């Protein structure tokens, strides 16, 4: 692994030494802080969260400022009719965009997990703004194309930002359902009793209650000791019994899970909570699937979630472990383990083993239905509060990291202080607790740094997509006026053109290696050059079909052509490895 890291660094340095930037950064005072654009064309604040209008505006400004690097399209509408913006970022002056190895990025599949959107947008911005100053980025955009959808749950996001919510509500999209089976739809939602935009906790003084105020941090309630009388009841999230059925907040917007709506090992909602009717019940899911199917060049994917600080790979369910072969796991391991270094506090995990079982998740659809190497980063972790692992011995009521962080670093901005309220059902209560954008989403000053670190992880992932070159073309005259031409095609990155899973189930077609401008008599794959072991291909011998070009590996193909040969062109046409050729 260390060797690979070194290799990664060396390649960057080499590339830098070889190509001089053709446009200098417009420095403000002559010195640029390394790694960041000094005077970006698109002025953007990375310590804030964007709503739909701001995302749309950002995307449009990106296209305007970088017409040769950024194109914008809507891949379809959300359930409520918002445009699902996708930025396609590549060097449009070099190559055919959709034939380059493609990297897909989305964020915010859960409406409340909004910072994935900012990290995706930061990535788009960073790539475009540094294209002219950083040779590594220039190379990356010459050889790769990035498909970036900041938010794939715009309805849930808009609801989270503009409507009262807790840190965990608005995870769903907005398709209405009758959650309590009373024949009326979405009739008992959360209620913002004090109108501050946050849904916090309701408590009621009660000598028979089992809760008490945390003596150190009075915004927090802790359970009374086993042998101690309490002072309060906790009455759940801020809300009313709107429909008079004796339950509070039981039929909110939605409620379902867009990340259980995907077509790999999809299970119904009694097996997998949050599932809808069938994979792709949501228009958002269908729009993405159509886009991905129309872009078979997508070789890597990232879907940003929160939270917990994890680089997650599949599978979501233990029974799908056999679909991850050793070869594919080795690719994930390299990226995941480097990731643990570049994003401190984040762990490289397997969904079903280290998190929980997910049937019908998006990651599995990309990885197992389409054969795409896919990670999902769970952004934000309590490690980030004081750059240390929380004390594992403490339970959540003993650990005070969030309260201390709020006090010393947020100056108390993270919590709503308790205030009295006359509740129609509960009587005199108090409402207070953490704001909706604390706990799960990054505080402003941590957002930019984590955006950069997670982007770096994803760029490493994108860098390791297959990179093909025709390494050599060797011509050898044979008897009877024939010539033997042997081409070696090299993949200089760790991802193969086909994952082992893809190969097993023939998800993507083989890679085509064609000989142009020669009369081909026969064609073959060279299995062992030293002992002249070859496998002939009878059909279309001028285009040899190789099932795969392995990571950090090569394939050799050979043609027997009639006559003497001067210059030939060898073209490699790989869905995930790109379209390249060499004439020699």
């Amino acid at each position, binding site marked *: 692994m260390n060797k690979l890291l070194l290799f990664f660094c060396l390649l960057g340095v080499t590339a830098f030494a070889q190509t001089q930037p053709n446009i200098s950064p417009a420095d403000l005072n002559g010195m640029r802080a390394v790694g960041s654009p000094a005077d970006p064309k698109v002025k953007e604040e990375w310590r804030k969260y964007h709503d739909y209008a701001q995302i749309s505006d950002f995307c449009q400004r990106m296209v305007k400022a970088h017409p040769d690097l950024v194109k914008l399209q809507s891949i379809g509408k959300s359930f409520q009719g918002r445009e699902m913006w996708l930025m396609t970022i590549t060097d449009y002056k070099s190559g055919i965009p959709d034939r380059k190895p493609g990297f897909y990025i989305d964020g915010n599949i859960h409406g409340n997990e909004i910072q994935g959107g900012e990290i995706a947008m930061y990535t788009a911005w960073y790539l475009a703004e540094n294209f002219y100053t950083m040779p590594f980025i220039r190379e990356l955009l010459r050889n790769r194309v990035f498909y970036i959808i900041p938010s794939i749950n715009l309805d849930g996001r808009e609801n989270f930002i503009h409507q009262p919510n807790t840190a965990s509500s608005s995870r769903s999209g907005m398709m209405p359902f009758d959650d309590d*089976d*009373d024949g009326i739809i979405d009739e008992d939602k959360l209620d913002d009793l004090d109108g501050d935009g946050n849904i916090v906790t309701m408590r009621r003084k009660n000598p028979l209650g089992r809760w008490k105020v945390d003596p150190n941090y009075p915004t927090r309630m802790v359970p009374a000791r086993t042998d101690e009388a309490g002072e309060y009841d906790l009455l759940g999230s801020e809300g009313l019994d709107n429909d008079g*059925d004796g339950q509070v907040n039981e039929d909110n917007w939605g409620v379902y899970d867009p990340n259980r709506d995907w*077509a790999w090992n999809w299970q119904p909602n*009694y097996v997998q909570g949050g599932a809808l*009717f*069938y994979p792709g019940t949501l228009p958002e899911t269908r729009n993405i699937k159509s886009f991905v199917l129309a872009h078979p060049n997508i070789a890597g994917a990232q879907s940003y979630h929160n939270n917990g600080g994890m680089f997650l790979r599949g599978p979501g369910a233990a029974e799908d472990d056999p679909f991850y072969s050793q070869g594919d796991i080795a690719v994930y391991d390299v990226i995941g383990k480097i990731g643990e270094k570049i994003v401190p506090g984040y762990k490289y995990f397997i969904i079903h083993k280290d998190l929980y079982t997910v049937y019908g998740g998006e990651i599995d*659809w990309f990885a197992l239905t389409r054969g795409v190497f896919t990670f999902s980063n769970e952004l934000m972790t309590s490690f980030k509060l004081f750059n240390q692992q929380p004390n594992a011995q403490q339970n959540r009521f003993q650990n005070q990291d969030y309260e201390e962080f709020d006090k010393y670093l947020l100056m108390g901005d993270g919590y709503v202080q308790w205030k009295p309220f006359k509740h129609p059902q509960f009587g005199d209560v108090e409402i207070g607790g953490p704001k909706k954008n604390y706990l799960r989403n990054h505080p402003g000053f941590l957002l930019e740094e984590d955006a950069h670190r997670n982007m770096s992880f994803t760029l490493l992932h994108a860098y390791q997509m297959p990179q093909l070159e025709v390494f050599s073309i060797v011509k050898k005259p044979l008897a009877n006026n024939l010539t033997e031409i042997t081409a070696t095609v090299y993949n200089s990155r760790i991802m193969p053109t086909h994952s082992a899973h893809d190969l097993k*189930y023939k998800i993507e077609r083989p890679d085509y290696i064609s000989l142009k401008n020669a009369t081909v008599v026969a064609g073959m794959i060279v299995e062992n050059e030293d002992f002249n072991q070859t496998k002939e291909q009878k059909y279309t011998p001028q285009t040899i079909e190789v099932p795969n070009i392995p990571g950090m590996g090569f394939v050799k193909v050979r043609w027997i052509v009639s006559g003497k040969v001067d210059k030939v062109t060898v073209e490699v046409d790989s869905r995930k490895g790109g379209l390249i050729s060499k004439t020699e």
Partner: protein
Amino acid sequence: MRLIVLLILCGFWGGLSAQKTYSTYQQLTTRIKDLAGKNASLASVSSAGKSAGGKDLWLITLSQGNPGSKPALLLVGGLDGSHPAGSETLLLMAEKMLNNPSDQVKDLLSKKTLYIMACANPDAWDQGKSRFERSGNATSSDEDRDGRVNEDPFEDLNADGLITQLRVEDPSGTLIPSKSDPRILVKADPTKSEVGKYLLLSEGTDNDKDNNWNEDAEGGVNINKNFTFNYPYFEKESGVYAASEAETKAVLEFLYRNLNIFGVIVFGPENNLSSAIKFDAAKARNRIVTGPLEKDAAVGEYVSKMYNTSTGLKNAPAMPLGKGSLVQTAYYHAGRFGFGTPGWWPQMPPQDSSQKQKAPAAAATLSADEIFFKWADAEKVAVFADWKEIKHPDFPGKKVEVGGLLPYARWNPPVSYLDDIAQKHNKFLLDLAAAMPSLDIVNTKVEPLSGGVNRITVQVINKGFLPTFADLGNRVKYVSKVRTTLNHTATQTLLSGKKMNLQASMGAGEFVEYTWLVNGTGKISVTVTCPTAGTKTVEFTLN
């Protein structure tokens, strides 16, 4: 022989009279629209969506009054395009039901709704010139995943207008003609000193020289392999992923959105009606349920008995439920009852009276294929093309013959046979509808206590012979439970009891009792409702 085949072919697809031949899609559409046009009070037609090829998925709704307010059955045919008989049967059933509707039919449609999607895969319906058995829709599919679409199609080598089979004499062949009927090729059994003689391939050439014959022909996704339960990943004709097809989504949207659908009956090549799926505790116990729950298995047995009695059909060949099929998805995922039948299958011809004493239990010892050929011979139905030698470029110097079973012949009889089948299945449908759950409120009591307080007691009962919904439906969010509500006015206060009560599935004759204490006077009512079992309201006056 060729002439006979051509005649059959013309009769099969091309005839003008809808009564005597399989309809074209156009004729089908006309028949469906006529049905609604002539019976506006009982039938309506809408489009449930479009196929991959842009054809309407016609939905016939048979109901008197508001269809959505009554318990319903959804009947679907033609999901697997190679089974047009299912579609024809369903359409005939609808036509027969509405042709001078009997009192029984009128009564049924006043209490229940029938949703009929006779042709759920219309792209497969209208065939091209070479008649090959096509299951899939118009989605373009690269069946062998080599990057070339439809590059190894069938070829009509003997130019008879049909795609049949190739029989190749080859030392590596494992098949020999069956002793009982040489039209049937069976595996040679080395333990009986039998030596294989033939390879059996489809009619065509190996265009892409990959030693597979016709592995990538036109014809996209078989809709009955595209549903979500036990979806067959990466298998032929199953699509790129579960529910990828417009037809699949249209059926599922309709099923899930219409909470009144109690069960689904699919006319296609699967059968759990002639004999029901047995209860298997291990399969029912898992988190992912793969066998019917005990109560549902008992319902399956009951319905199966009813099916066999009502239709009088016997000797059904085993046709197990397939992967990714609607019958299973309706049950295991949507929580509704799922039934399947091909409708028609070859019946053993009545025995010659002179041979009566000889072979009393013949049917039991014959294979399904043997029965099929006996039926075809007795009924003089052309189902087989005699083997005829041709020269084949892929097998120089070898004896190659074209012939064998005609496309569609195995499960699609001449359409005249379906008349009687439709009649029999209508009888089953009426019997099934009559057994469906029916909610009532009985043993009602109003007891005045002192001070204007009344105690109301009712029993909610399922008077049907089937449960209010499948037991598995208890676990499914998108199955509405039995809801009993006390409808009180603003001046009446509820002192005890819940205003709204949800109850899990209630079996035949099962009841549940509710009691409320109400402070106040005047009119008050109790309503029980369940979309799959009906609605009932009783009114009381409190003094």
